């Protein structure tokens, strides 16, 4: 930058940016409104790409390995873009789910489990070890970051700081007793956490000690049928309250990836327990098949 009048240059570049912005708004007002409403105005495009890539979403060459999703003309193994993959998943899920967000039948849950197994190669069930939530299909709302240890602040979280941090701890307390004792797996747990309504379980009060331990960091599969996105998270908080009309809460990273917020800041999701005794399923976006050794589901 040596040799430039930085202030002058900044003013001139800001003016050019303003003119380009005004021209865009005037010529394509519908596009301006659409992108703004989706939270991705032109200024945020690169940020959006960064987020997707940093969360592992849509990275690398993703090759579809679930034959039942393949239907293109390029061969027996379909090569889909991430967008095409999500469209396929949306289509399949809409056929398996009721038209409105309501309680699923045992049969619907079973069919969904089969579908998740075939696509993602994971064992995901609405009921596990005799435990089930009151809802396996419901609305999820956006939660804030959780404090991971005493003294944790929002500035110490590496992404989506604009979501803020809750003033109190999660229902299962701090993730670690101190900053020094935070480990990578605990960082991931806070990034990809959900809140579920354990407090409304019929046997919560009578079996609280057992249930508390069973639900703590229980791995779950969360699937947004509207976006076709799936993420693996852990249960790390209780809520939301029944009067909110929501049945689940999602961490900023979970909500960002699932694209689960509509204008009312909530969206429908399927939430199943993941049976993963050998801890083979990683937390975060699920864009691969676990049983096929992590084979990606689509090609960029």
């Amino acid at each position, binding site marked *: *930058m040596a040799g*430039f009048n930085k202030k002058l240059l900044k003013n*001139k*570049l800001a003016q050019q940016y303003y003119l380009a912005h005004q021209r865009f708004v005037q010529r394509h007002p519908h596009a301006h409104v659409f*992108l703004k409403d989706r939270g991705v105005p032109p*200024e945020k495009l*690169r940020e959006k790409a960064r987020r997707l*890539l940093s969360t592992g979403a849509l990275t690398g060459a993703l090759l579809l390995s679930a034959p039942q999703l393949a239907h293109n003309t390029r061969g027996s193994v379909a090569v889909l873009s991430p967008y095409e993959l999500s469209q396929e998943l949306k289509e399949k899920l809409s056929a398996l789910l009721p038209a409105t967000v309501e309680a699923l039948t045992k049969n619907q849950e079973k069919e969904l489990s089969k579908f998740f197994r075939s696509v993602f190669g994971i064992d995901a069930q609405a009921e596990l070890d005799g435990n089930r939530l009151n809802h396996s299909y419901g609305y999820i709302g956006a939660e804030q970051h959780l404090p991971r240890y005493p003294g944790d602040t929002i500035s110490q979280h590496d992404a989506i700081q604009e979501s803020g941090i809750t003033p109190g701890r999660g229902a299962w307390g701090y993730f670690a007793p101190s900053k020094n004792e935070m480990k990578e797996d605990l960082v991931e747990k806070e990034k990809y956490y959900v809140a579920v309504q354990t407090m409304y379980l019929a046997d919560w009060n009578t079996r609280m000690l057992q249930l508390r331990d069973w639900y703590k960091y229980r791995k779950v599969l969360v699937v947004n049928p509207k976006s076709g996105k799936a993420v693996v998270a852990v249960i790390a908080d209780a809520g939301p309250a029944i009067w909110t009309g929501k049945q689940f809460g999602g961490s900023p990273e979970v909500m960002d990836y699932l694209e689960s917020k509509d204008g009312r800041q909530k969206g429908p999701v399927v939430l199943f327990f993941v049976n993963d005794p050998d801890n083979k399923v990683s937390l975060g976006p699920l864009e691969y098949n676990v049983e096929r050794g992590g084979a990606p589901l689509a090609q960029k």
Partner: protein
Amino acid sequence: MNKIFYDHLVGIDEITALVDGDLVDLMDNTMHHHILDEILTHLPVEHHKAFLERLAHAPHDPGLLIFIQEVTVIDIEKAITKRANAVKKELLKTIRNSRKK
């Protein structure tokens, strides 16, 4: 910088390399507005919604370029490059004119 689907046609790095800090963002954002203007100008209106949805969903998806190539009647890659070159020329001029005398 993380990639947007049209970056390889634009070559914004050629001029952002000359500046630093928030000036990079100003140039980059100016370019995004121009390129989207160019694309939407040539893209038939009935395809705007599908394009914008895909863009908001995954701005780096190379399938976006394939999509707009298929539904526009002109050589859209050429149009993007031409517009990008014109914008880069203007930005370069601005940089040169801001040299200390």
